[in-house]
């Protein structure tokens, strides 16, 4: 949990209160002006209701220039940020032709595959020429090429699962799979800080949703016990099935999931587990296989492994890798089991029994291929993007004949741990765990968001600041994403700039030296 200093909480509330009051004040006059004008939309309710976009109009627009900054190059370690200007108090921003070369601390380019790569790019272009950019068809119609099948095999073996299915977008992977797996009478227990795609998928499924406190296995156990004992609301029938959804690395916290403990709880209570590795796959673990490898969890204990290709692999799309589902009622399986049983008897070997398990395991992915809407209706992964994933996995595994993959993995770990410890030494409040390449720096006060972001950009360091829709109102933060493509000099420069700006903005909340009082005073003045 984040312990917010009392004074900071007070000043943050005060700032938001002030912004809210001024916003309401301006809205009041806006209403008067609108009222005096002839209304063309008589009889229609306004398309955006008053308070629904109040936040955008009155708060977000003031600091709009800190978000959505366009770039005009690959999101590599250094990139070109396009300069923008505004003639109407930030309401609209216009692009200029001027760019500034900035150090990129914002993109999820964990392994540095975002830019052209000596191994991947030629293969991607070759694939583009062979397969064109799109198949214009869904996977189940005419969108399955040799490449897609190959990709699924690569992904399955990379995450150490028997089978996998890929989709054209990571967000869709979560939001279209959950309705397939869960339905009425099922229970989804979700970490309180899970990504919006999981939340949307859970809502779309029609199942009951319960939340457990972020990354606290004991609370998960409490919720599970209570829910199993109570059963479904009102009818008190037992739940049909329960699934626990967690993420490998939480993108806004930089924390690693307490996976071993959570898996133990889930096993004890027979709940299924769903692990979203959007930020962790490829980025952590000795061979880049994600949190399971890092924390020593057997992938067989996780029923559904989900991940995306947007981050470490520098491509797009998402995957689901399936676990053994012992669905013994299925006639298909019964047939297969009897077949394998006879086969096993004949062969009298252990090996054929192992293969029997694999057949059972493929079942989940088969079922998804049979009925998942994203597989049936959505355009399949763009072939060049699929090739990028295959090639980058090959590089990570060293199948390209070099040890660049291992170097990249070592580099990102070293870079992340160096950067995190330096930030902590300076007195910043940094969230997250060691080894995680994501490190949020707490800002709290709304005025510090644009101040930090703009000052860093002035010094040619591009950082991401995150505020309300993505985080709780009080807990605004800046987020640093470290990449394997950053050199030590890049990081040292970034640290210098961040330290300087941190002093200016007053966000070194932790007492590096006895300067704390002074800084707090400054923070209030800044508001």
């Amino acid at each position: 949990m984040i312990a917010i200093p009392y004074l900071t909480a007070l000043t943050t509330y005060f700032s938001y209160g002030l912004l809210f009051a001024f916003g309401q004040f301006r809205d009041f006059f806006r209403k008067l002006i609108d009222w005096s004008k002839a209304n063309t939309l008589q009889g229609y309710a306004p398309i955006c209701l008053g308070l629904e976009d109040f936040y955008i109009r009155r708060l977000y627009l003031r600091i709009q220039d800190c978000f959505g900054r366009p770039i005009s190059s690959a999101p590599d370690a250094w990139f070109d940020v396009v300069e923008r200007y505004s003639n109407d108090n930030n309401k609209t921003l216009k692009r200029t032709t001027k760019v500034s070369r900035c150090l990129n601390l914002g993109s999820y380019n964990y392994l540095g595959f975002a830019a052209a790569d000596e191994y991947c790019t030629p293969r991607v272009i070759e694939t583009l020429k062979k397969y064109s950019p799109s198949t214009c068809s869904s996977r189940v119609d005419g969108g399955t090429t040799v490449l897609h099948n190959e990709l699924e095999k690569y992904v399955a073996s990379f995450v150490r699962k028997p089978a996998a299915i890929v989709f054209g977008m990571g967000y869709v992977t979560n939001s279209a799979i959950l309705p397939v797996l869960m339905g009425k009478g099922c229970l989804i227990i979700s970490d309180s800080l899970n990504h919006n795609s999981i939340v949307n998928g859970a809502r779309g499924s029609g199942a009951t949703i319960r939340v457990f406190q972020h990354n606290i296995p004991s609370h998960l156990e409490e919720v599970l016990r209570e829910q199993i004992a109570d059963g479904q609301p009102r009818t008190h029938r037992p739940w049909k099935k329960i699934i626990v959804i967690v993420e490998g690395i939480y993108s806004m916290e930089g924390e690693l999931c307490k996976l071993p403990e959570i898996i133990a709880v889930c096993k004890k209570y027979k709940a299924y587990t769903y692990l979203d590795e959007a930020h962790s796959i490829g980025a952590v673990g000795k061979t880049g296989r994600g949190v399971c490898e890092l924390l020593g969890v057997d992938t067989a204990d996780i029923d559904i492994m989900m991940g995306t290709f947007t981050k470490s692999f520098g491509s797009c799309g998402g995957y689901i890798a399936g676990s053994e589902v012992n669905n013994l009622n299925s006639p298909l399986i019964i047939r297969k089991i009897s077949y394998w049983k006879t086969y096993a008897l004949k062969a009298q070997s252990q090996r054929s029994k192992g293969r029997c398990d694999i057949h059972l395991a493929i079942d989940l992915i088969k079922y998804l291929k049979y009925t998942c809407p994203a597989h049936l209706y959505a355009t399949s992964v763009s072939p060049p993007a699929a090739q990028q994933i295959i090639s980058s996995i090959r590089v990570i595994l060293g199948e390209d004949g070099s040890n660049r993959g291992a170097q990249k993995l070592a580099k990102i770990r070293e870079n992340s741990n160096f950067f995190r410890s330096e930030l902590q030494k300076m007195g910043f409040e940094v969230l997250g765990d060691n080894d995680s390449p994501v490190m949020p720096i707490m800002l709290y006060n709304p005025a510090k968001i644009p101040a930090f972001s703009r000052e860093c950009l002035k010094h040619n360091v591009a950082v991401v600041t995150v505020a309300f829709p993505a985080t709780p109102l009080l807990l605004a933060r800046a987020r640093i994403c470290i990449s394997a493509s950053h050199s030590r000099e890049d990081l040292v420069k970034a640290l210098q700039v961040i330290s300087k700006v941190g002093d200016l903005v007053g966000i070194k909340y932790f007492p590096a030296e006895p300067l704390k009082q002074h800084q707090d005073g400054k923070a209030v003045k800044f508001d």
Partner: protein
Amino acid sequence: MAEAVMNFVNTTLDWVTGALDMPSARAQVFGFQIGGHLFIEVFLLVVILFLLSQKSYKPPKRPLTNKEIDELCDEWVPEPLIPSLNEEPYAPPVLESAAGPHTVINGKEVVNFSSANYLGLIGHKKLLDSCSSALDKYGVGSCGPRGFYGTIDVHLDFEARIAKFLGTPDSILYPFGFSTMFSAIPAFSKKGDIIVADEGVHWAIQNGLYLSRSTVVYFKHNDMKSLRETLENITSKNKRVDKLRRYIVVEAVYQNSGQIAPLDEIIKLKEKYKFRVLLDESNSFGVLGKSGRGLTEYSGVPIEKLDIVTADMGHALAAEGGFCTGSTRVIDHQRLSSSGYVFSASLPPYLASAAITAIDILEENPELLSKLKNNLSVLWKELSKVPGLKITSNKESPIVYLKLEKSTGSQKDDLCLLEKIAQRVLEEDSVFVVVSHRSTLDKCRLPVGIRLFVSAGHSEYDLRRASESLKRVSAQVLGGHN
């Protein structure tokens, strides 16, 4: 017994009258005679205070003991993660080359009717060139959502280009066509709002309707009478209707039937009943209208009359992603409220660049559209005589949709028959057509059918080959059935 009671009552009455006759009972305060009230009132007050001080009655609560919960947890048996599957799922043919009008399956060249490559842009040289130069410049992925350095200048260029092409003030680019509708609808419609939707809309829209938690009323597929009745019903029944946001959600060309929505009538109804219209142009953008601007151009309706227009770029534009276009307010609202836009990595820049080029090609080569129209009319004429199958699609829809003339009564059996036809057509005559597979989550109840996505890249010979083959095979397969 009775005597005892009488005695008791008498003594009580004596006591009360005695109390009332007491000198203090007749005390006067400020000139008012208080009488015996005071005693009774004080007594009542004491009783009330006494009752208040007592604990209220609660049925004894006996929460489950830990042991009982342990037992319940032990006893609980979850269902398997997935239900049993009674059939071997359909395994689609695997393409060994680009999904153009001709493709390779199992080492054999086949005519491809499964790809919504309406303008035949797959494999177009200009498109490939723009993609490869974008790949060189930007790499493959954008590595971030639009808000966090995932906005690349080609994204903005595309948004400006599409707005200019369609004549709208602004547009917004989504990273995936499938997520466009199910993000855009919940951004504008919330709990309590009313949506009137066609019953034939595809799953992405259905999901958007569900996620919005609005009141959704379906009308009969492409039936304007039913739409009118539904609108009339809603507006007359609900008195607060003026305060609610009301939307009509339709597709331009229905993916599930190939029919074209009569936009001019919808606009008339919308204006009469004051609804807003959301139109999905996924299968009509780049196809319908004189210059491919979609259903609005085709029906001669100015695009300003529509409030929200969405489209999938994975069809005619031969790229991937989706866009939504409309007024500045509508677009700006989505930039922070639309989940599929805010919380997802942006479109790979090479696909945005491909889409820009595709629009350029469309503008420069209007003959692509006339070729497509010509192809459609040829195929339509040929296929109207297929024994046992009936065309349900509109004459100008790029999806030619054939359903069984006589349904077997179950969707599954229908699908089986159609699959058999498609499989034989592919194996025997190398024509690749697809059957409309439906997810078990899909609420659409329109009949299943064989879908042919016609492309400007098909030659007349391809079309004849397809229709001849379909005629021959369906006569054989359905001959016994009918």
